[in-house]
């Protein structure tokens, strides 16, 4: 087991290296660099730019250096914990992300809990009552959640919340609390505003989870051991809880891998529409303005979380389900 873990961790190094090259290349693919898109943006607004200032910045940010050198500087910097410099904010990347990370984790965490709380009972219900009206009705709701684009739902809910409840449009708290230290009123304000993103992002996730739980559970429910348990006279709820449900939960664990980056990046588009102070819009803007170190470091962090998440979920699966063995990789 230990050998397996070490091997997996060692494998992460070339993986991350490859990812860093890909990330850097993709960010560099669009023509121009940060300064050029900066000039273009200013000019679209009718502003002028001082060429000398641009020359200074180009040299200061090292944008006049060859690409390979820029890459190496960034990649080796990350090893030392230096994630580079955000051009847009004129400060180190770590400082830029700061507070936003915290709010992002809160929103995403609440969203995941919401998704589970809604999807779990519905999934079980629709599996045990297959092809009933309830099954169809609830599945329909779930599919609507998938089918309606998040940003659309966000706009509608936001409009209704503004007109009916008078909640200010967008944001995660009433404007007067932004930038203030945390207080009870601020927490209340966050709760008042956060239900919108939670519902919007959550609805798209529930349908998927409902269908997977339903399918897995249906597979198990047909199996002989369930029949045996029933035949022995166990009450139906206990049967369900004790055997097939546990079997059907594997996908929950394997989801962790994709869940971790989801917590950090949130749902970008929804966050942009709702103008949430989370990290999603920041990543999007960084990519748009070619603020390459901010975007790059961000993507690297997400990639790292995926790699770690997959490892954790693999190990957790082994621990939880005795049917799964590691032999495929290690045994020879």
């Amino acid at each position: 087991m230990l050998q397996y873990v070490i091997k997996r961790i060692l494998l992460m190094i070339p993986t991350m290296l490859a990812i860093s090259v890909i990330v850097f290349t993709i960010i560099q693919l669009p023509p121009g660099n940060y300064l050029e898109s900066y000039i273009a943006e200013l000019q679209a607004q009718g502003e002028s730019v001082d060429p000398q200032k641009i020359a200074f910045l180009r040299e200061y940010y090292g944008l006049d250096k060859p690409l390979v050198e820029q890459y190496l500087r960034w990649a080796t910097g990350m090893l030392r914990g230096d994630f580079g410099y955000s051009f847009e904010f004129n400060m180190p990347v770590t400082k830029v992300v700061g507070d936003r990370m915290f709010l992002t984790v809160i929103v995403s965490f609440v969203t995941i809990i919401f998704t589970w709380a809604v999807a779990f009972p519905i999934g079980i219900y629709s599996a045990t009552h297959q092809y009933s009206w309830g099954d169809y009705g609830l599945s329909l709701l779930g599919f609507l959640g998938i089918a309606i684009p998040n940003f659309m739902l966000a706009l509608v809910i936001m409009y209704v919340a503004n007109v009916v409840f008078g909640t200010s449009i967008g944001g995660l708290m009433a404007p007067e609390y932004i930038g203030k230290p945390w207080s009870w009123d601020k927490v209340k304000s966050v709760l008042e505003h956060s239900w919108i993103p939670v519902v919007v992002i959550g609805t798209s996730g529930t349908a998927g989870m409902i269908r997977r739980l339903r399918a897995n559970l249906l597979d198990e429910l047909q199996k002989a051991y369930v029949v045996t348990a029933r035949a022995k006279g166990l009450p139906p709820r206990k049967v369900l809880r004790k055997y097939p449900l546990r079997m059907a939960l594997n996908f929950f664990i394997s989801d962790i891998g994709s869940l971790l980056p989801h917590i950090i990046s949130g749902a970008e588009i929804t966050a942009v529409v709702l103008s949430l102070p989370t990290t999603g819009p920041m990543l999007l803007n960084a990519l748009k303005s070619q603020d390459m170190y901010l975007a790059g470091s961000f993507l690297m962090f997400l990639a790292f979380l995926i790699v770690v998440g997959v490892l954790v979920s693999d190990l957790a699966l082994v621990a939880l389900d005795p049917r799964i063995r590691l032999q495929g990789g290690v045994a020879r």
Partner: protein
Amino acid sequence: MKALIIRIVALAALASTLAAPAFAAEEPPSLAADVAAGKLPPVTERLPRVPLVFTAPRSDWTLGRYGGELRTLQAKDRDIRMMVVYGYSRLVGYDEQLHLTPDILEKVDNVDSRTFTLHLRPGHKWSDGKPFTTEDFRYYWEDVAHNKELSPFGLPQALLVNGHPPKFEVLDATTVRFTWVEPNPMFLPALAAPSPLYIYRPAHYLRQFHARYVGLEKANANAVEAGSRSWAGLHQKKDEQFRFDNPDLPTLEPWINTTPLPATRFVLVRNPYFHRVDANGRQLPYIDKIIVGITDDKLIPAKTGAGDVDLQVRYLRFDNYTFLKQSEKRNQYHVRLWEKALGSQIALYPNLNAEDPEWRKLMRDVRFRRALSLGINRHEINEVVYFGLGRESSNTVLQRSALFRPEFRSAWTKFDLKAANALLDSIGLTRRDGAGLRLLPDGRPMELIIDTSGESTEETDVLELIRDSWRQLGIAMFSRPSQREVFRKRVFSGKSMMSIWSGMSNGIPTADMSPGELAPTTQEQLQWPMWGQYYEQGRKGGEAPTAPDVVELVKLFEQWRNSGSADEREKIWLRMLAINADEVYTIGIVTRALQPVVVRDNLRNVPVEGIYSWDPGAYFGMYHPDTFWIDTAQTAAASAK
């Protein structure tokens, strides 16, 4: 004894009020507590000895009342710099009639545009209460502009005349003098620009980062600790008067930014040491606080319509007008339409540096450019796209400008297919293919591709209409939308034959403003990017222009730069405008495009009709937002209803 002391104190108080300006010292209520507690000196001591007295610029302008906060929106953290633009506190600035008047300066003595003597206001203070003196100018000149590490590329362009720097002298604590051998007409307009030439720095604050004052090693160590690579990097970062992102940096603007980046909500508070007063001697600004929310730009019209702002102009487009108008009543605001100062709302730019030799030859042929201009039905475009609110025009200055001449506006703008076809025939483009398209001399059909930045449907709508009328000239036109950076690259490299973009950015110039847009001066000019690059890079990169009229434009521009007389500058301007109008280097379509401005009903002193312009104008800056005020009586009346 006690009585005597009281009498002396009273006398002293009397003396100090006599020395101070003869105004009633009304304290802004939001500062009264601090003054009473002794944290802040009284207003008479905070104002310069000779403050700027703001007089009513319009008949509907009224004296205001103190207080309140003003909410507005921007799309990015970086946009906080707009508050420096709106604040528009400059050494000299434009008033509403576009006259340059002293603002931070008490006066300027200008001798032949060669010698400029700047007189500061005695007793003027930075927002932290420290004196603003000629030491701040000296610090900029010696320790910033002439420091190899802070300014590796030398002095800013506006300070150089034919490459020569001025002589800088500090005459006393409130007077400095700049002297050039040749005239420098660019100097004062550069000081008045929305993104101005800052020739002063808060020396008392910035010294702590400067190697000369704290020692190289200590300065560098501090910088590394603060996350910068060198002391110069840290100094640069702290010294951003225009970016406005350092709350610690003292300022002379009406409001001080208190929020560091990154943030989604910026709070600006009044500068207690601001140098302007109203006619009653009350210190400006009237409004205590400005709240700048940061929201995605596409959401800004929606939030504006929902009544989340008191004043909004940026990121509102003309096509939001009907939507905004709809919720005017419900959310108690008014949508006003201001005029944009663009020479033409959109203009076509034939690329005189196009790569394709056949097309390049045509683009450089004035007959071809004139034919294209005559082949545009501007009236139809105006009616269809702009609801008839625009005015058909070439790309030239607007009627408001003293340099406007009707013949510039109407030059080659009459829709006349017959004349256009005759011009094309006279070039020798007489062969046609089966579909009726004219053929280029090398036999290719004339298929003209116009590059767009792909950002506005307005451009594509206009092109769609132009396509139809040009087809009757025997020219097929296609538009090629791309993305902004790609678009610019294609134009600069000559891959694009023609492009579409907004027209002259300063449509309301005076003869004292630079006519640089009319001659090749920078690569950014889409009609002759390579010629522009040639002059931008000091006659090294790009290509030297060959067309005689363009060479004349360059000469005229140089003459303007070295001209000491206002009359001569006006003559040069008119000549350059005439050449541009006649040669049709850019093809204008309509002017007087409108910009919606949303103003809350209780906000006073925002002009009903205004110009929306970057330079000159600084957007709201020219209209002095420090004199805008919130009519609380009206708010109360409205909520009682």
